């Protein structure tokens, strides 16, 4: 069921439709940020970590609250605050060449650390540097450590360079968890490691993951009841951030699944900025993160063309559940290691290409698109080759556009729109050709 809410953004003047799950998520996030703001008074410990390789269940088993800096940065982008934050960071010596998430986060910190929901973010009691699939993470927390002067623990997740995790790599992760990460969490929170509590959370995680996967797989239908990119970034919000392994997370994903199943039963498409997209002309697969500063405009470019995204890789940066992974409470630390290792950007390029080709085939996509963001070499380096390789394997034409995560200077609406329009015309021409 969709409800109507007044748009929160200053530039959004008209009423927008929102699903019930979106409202639920908004409430969850607001409550989480309110709790974070009160943390200095309530004494709840706070642990900063990253989305890929986040170990929310472990953090919460110590009674700590997670903060995900990338989420704050993207939210700042959506709220049109990132440009000022980035400018602030660049004024203090950060290069224009590096990740804008980092600069946005540092700029926000310098500007008083007021988070995206308008509440002050607490200082971390621990920086849990889950170094998973992104080199910049390591530097990001080295930089934050200088600002916060707080304990930091590194969790190094080896890259799957050969397309699979090897025994010595898994053992390395397990030893780090036992010898480094858990002792650091015990010290930061003053609580002992409770494996039973962790198992309980992991059981809840698996339930949420089942529901999320059902939602993502629903895009195989025609019409797709979801948008697997613009919509999916909302769907993965709770599981990628503070709510995996929590009862609220389970409730959210149950509600989301029911909502999507209701749309399937009614033959409806996803809710987009322009309303329900039931008449779907193009089915696309997208690789790469979205642009956040113009998220709504970007989505609208697709919706206007009746293009629905049926699968995306960005919605797998916090876990590749749709390929079968589930958190396993029977092996609590092993499953955390397996989870981290399997996050999308920790996979090598041949695996990423194969994933995209699988999506194109299984979701019967008409085309696939790469949104290459300047900020993120982990995603972007090699994407031009991925484009050619996916085209070669699937016979489906690809397109390539460029933007950035949260730096509005690198979003050229006219250029992107032109490219998309040309691309859709090309898809039309191919269709016409195949009919003839």
């Amino acid at each position, binding site marked *: 069921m969709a409800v109507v809410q007044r748009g929160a953004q200053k530039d959004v003047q008209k009423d927008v439709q929102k699903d019930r799950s979106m409202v639920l998520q908004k409430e969850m996030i607001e409550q989480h940020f309110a709790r974070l703001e009160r943390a200095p008074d309530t004494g709840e410990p706070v642990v900063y970590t990253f989305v890929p390789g986040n170990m929310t269940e472990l953090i919460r088993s110590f009674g700590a609250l997670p903060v995900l800096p990338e989420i704050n940065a993207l939210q700042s982008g959506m709220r049109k605050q990132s440009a000022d934050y980035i400018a602030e960071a660049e004024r203090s010596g950060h290069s224009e060449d590096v990740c804008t998430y980092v600069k946005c986060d540092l700029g926000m910190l310098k500007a008083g650390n007021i988070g995206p929901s308008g509440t002050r973010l607490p200082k971390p009691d621990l920086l849990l540097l889950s170094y998973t699939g992104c080199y910049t993470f390591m530097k990001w927390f080295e930089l934050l450590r200088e600002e916060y002067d707080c304990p930091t623990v590194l969790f190094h997740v*080896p890259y799957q360079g050969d397309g699979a995790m090897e025994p010595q790599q898994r053992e*390395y992760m397990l030893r780090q968890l036992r010898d480094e990460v858990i002792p650091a969490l015990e010290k930061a929170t003053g609580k002992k490691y409770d494996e039973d509590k962790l198992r309980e959370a992991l059981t809840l995680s698996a339930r949420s993951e089942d529901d999320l996967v059902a939602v993502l797989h629903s895009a195989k239908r025609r019409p797709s009841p979801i948008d697997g990119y613009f919509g999916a970034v909302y769907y993965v919000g709770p599981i990628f951030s503070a709510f995996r392994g929590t009862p609220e997370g389970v409730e959210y994903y149950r509600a989301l699944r029911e909502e999507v199943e209701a749309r399937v039963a009614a033959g409806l498409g996803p809710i987009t900025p322009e309303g329900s997209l039931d008449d779907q002309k193009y089915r696309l697969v997208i690789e790469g993160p979205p642009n956040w500063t113009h998220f709504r405009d970007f989505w609208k470019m697709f919706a206007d063309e009746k293009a629905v995204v049926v699968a995306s890789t960005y919605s797998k940066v916090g876990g590749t559940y749709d390929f079968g992974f589930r958190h396993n409470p029977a092996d609590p630390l092993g499953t955390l290691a397996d989870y981290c290792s399997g996050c999308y950007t920790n996979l090598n390029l041949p695996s990423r290409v194969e994933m995209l080709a699988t999506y194109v085939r299984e979701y019967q996509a008409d085309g696939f698109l790469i949104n290459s963001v300047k900020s993120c*070499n982990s995603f972007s380096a090699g994407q031009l080759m991925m484009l050619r390789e996916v085209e070669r394997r699937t016979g489906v034409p690809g397109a390539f556009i460029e933007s950035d995560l949260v730096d509005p200077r690198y979003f050229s609406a006219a250029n992107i729109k032109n490219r998309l329009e040309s691309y859709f015309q090309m898809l039309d021409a191919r269709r016409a050709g195949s009919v003839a």
Partner: protein
Amino acid sequence: MVTRAEIVDWARALYEDLDFAAVKGWLADHPGRKAVGYLPVYVPREILQASSMLPVGIHGGGDRLEIIKGDAFYQSYICHLPRSVVELAQTGRLDMLSAVLFPSTCDVIRNLSGMWKLLYPDIYVRYIDVPQVMGATTGGAFWEGELRRLSKDLGEVSGQPAGDEAIRTAIALYNDTRRWVRALYAARLDAPWNVPTEELYLLMRAGEVVPAELFIERVREYLAAVEAEPGRPRDNSRVIVVGAFCEQPPLGLIKTIERAGCYIVDDDFLLGNRFLTADVSTKGDPTRALADAFIGNGLRTSVLYEPDPRGKRRLMKERATAAEADGIIFAAASFCDPALLDQPMLRAGAEEAAIPCIAFKYSENSGQFQQFREQAGTFSDSIKLWGRA
């Protein structure tokens, strides 16, 4: 006795040869042997050597290679090195390599390993993920496992698996190599007018494509020649060049810094050949010894996690003190994440310690040096006027 000019000419010819004739010549002279390439920054060359293969550094095409095919693989906001590496490969210049290793320097080089797998499925390709957690039972055990895996794989490629004795012999050889590299750097530190960085750099680059034994011989000859033909001291400033550990600056940039009045007395160029700062033990299990050496290694660099919260802040002062440097030039390749993300922390530390510094970015194919000359010249003058203690 070989003259300095002869040795430098020999090194320059190797540096300028983008067809790797020396490597191909070595392969022709050693039938049945193979060559393994590696990208910056660190690979365990001892394992490569012990597998009976010639280690070959791949440092791009510098300013001597027109990029025609390589640009089709990369967006404009990716550094230059991988495009010239792809160009070298796509034009057949790296066909003589039977294996290529991609160290965990950054995400660009990491992803290039996957591209190589797709482009050259018949070549052995491995991403070398060095440990970032330096405990003996964590990073040490992991790295030992990685080394054993690499050793096994390269043995299969070369057909001559590395036994313990071969690894020990290789360790001894590379201990010797590092000793001579340290000697070269020490000679420059003591008297930079005797060992211009242009010459030191060319020698080091030559060492990336010839057998270690030949490199050692040439360094020994060079140092002897330097003693026989000392230079004349100038009133230059002593500077450290920081950040050029992966994509290498064009030789013209190094010369420009020196000609602008700066003696380079420490640098990050070609860091892989001195990544291990102390000798590796030749006793006991040699693979374990290599792993222990890495874990116990004291080198601080942008490609490794810094566990000490004050480590980054202190590093520049420590290096400046050790090198008796007057100032620091932060020279990073454009779009180089490791160097550019580190720079604010390193620079803040330098400024806290009142060490003069400047920063600029380059690309391996930078062709205009006027702006660098002006910056470095002004920097040197300002140090001489106001900066020296």
